[in-house]
């Protein structure tokens, strides 16, 4: 009996591990191309920040490329991957009076899977932490340009992370709102009947 239980437990653990690994299997994602680009520009930005000096001798081209990759990464995450991978969007809008408000929206219509959202959140959070780490280590070395580019990368990543986090909090609030509305309705019906 005991051995059989252990065998079942082992099987469950292995299945769980496999499930966790397959959470990052891009080929099974709903939008594999977009997942790829989400990771690709971040990778390019890190690679050019750390290693481009070994490939291209001219520091000017290094700087240009790093800036371009930062910009591409931010644009892609904000406008493209956020919309397709997790169905969230944030932007600024203005009222008729001219005041500026920030909108954080979620929508459910586009098809997406758990793999998409886990890829999105893991890499965005991971990249943000990595840039913050580089800023911290570079501040001690007083190398202004390194701090500049790591700082730009960190601020852009964290801005995106903050924006999408606020969207997803809104989404959770909306869900809770719907749930509480339904329970109220249910109670009302129960009381009336």
């Amino acid at each position, binding site marked *: 009996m005991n051995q059989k239980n252990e065998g079942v437990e082992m099987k469950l653990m292995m299945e769980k591990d496999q499930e966790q690994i397959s959470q990052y299997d891009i080929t099974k994602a709903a939008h594999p191309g977009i997942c790829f680009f989400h990771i690709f520009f971040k990778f390019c930005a890190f690679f050019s920040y750390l290693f481009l000096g070994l490939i291209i001798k*001219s520091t000017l081209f290094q700087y240009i490329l790093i800036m371009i990759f930062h*910009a591409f990464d931010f644009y892609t995450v904000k406008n493209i991957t956020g919309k397709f991978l997790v169905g969230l969007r944030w932007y600024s809008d203005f009222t008729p009076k001219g005041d500026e408000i920030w909108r954080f929206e979620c929508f459910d219509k*586009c098809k997406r899977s758990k793999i998409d959202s886990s890829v999105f959140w893991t890499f965005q959070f991971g990249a943000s932490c990595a840039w913050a780490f580089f800023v911290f280590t570079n501040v001690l070395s007083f190398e202004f340009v390194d701090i*500049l580019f790591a700082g730009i990368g960190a601020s852009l990543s964290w801005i995106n992370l903050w924006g999408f986090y606020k969207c997803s909090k809104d989404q959770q609030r909306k869900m809770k709102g719907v749930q509480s509305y339904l329970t109220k309705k249910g109670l009302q019906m129960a009381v009336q009947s």
Partner: protein
Amino acid sequence: MDYTNQRPPQNYSQMDDQKTQDLEESVSETIMRDLKMIAYKLKYVLIPKEQEDNGKELRNWDLWGPLIFCLVLAMTLSFKAESTTTSTKSDVFAIIFVLIWVGAFIVTLNAQLLGGKVSFFQSVCLLGYCVFPINIEAIIIAFFGSYLPFLVKLIPVFLCFAWSAYSSVGFMASLVPPHKKKLAVYPVFLFYLFLSWFSLIV
């Protein structure tokens, strides 16, 4: 600040219908739409006759236009810079980049502290788009600078500086109380003057 995403009332911004359509756009459509908006805003900012509604279009600010112009200017000037050592070119790039963004930030802060009711990003967006004439001037000087005497080079520099300053001052002055106009406008002049001069002497 309002963080809800409830459906706004019907008399809210007209952009709402457009934004729901955006959700189903493909990637290439998104990119083309953004590029067209940058071109439209550029024309809007730099050609005063295009503005029928007193600058309301600026409320749809975006920072991609300023980023592009900043990068182009920094690249133009650093390619042109004397390469006595390789560090000079990249220094110029970093200097221009930091100068434009920090300068725009400071000018905006100044306008806000003087009591101007302007959104921070709107003003940075405007200042960034007005860098475009300085781009033109930098490219002209980069290509033809070695053939022209110094005084002749001053002409495009001055014209482009006047164009930038005129386009941005119109907006900035309208945002602050009338008796503080000169205080708000002076840093804008200084900002573009420095950029034009820098692109001349580098």
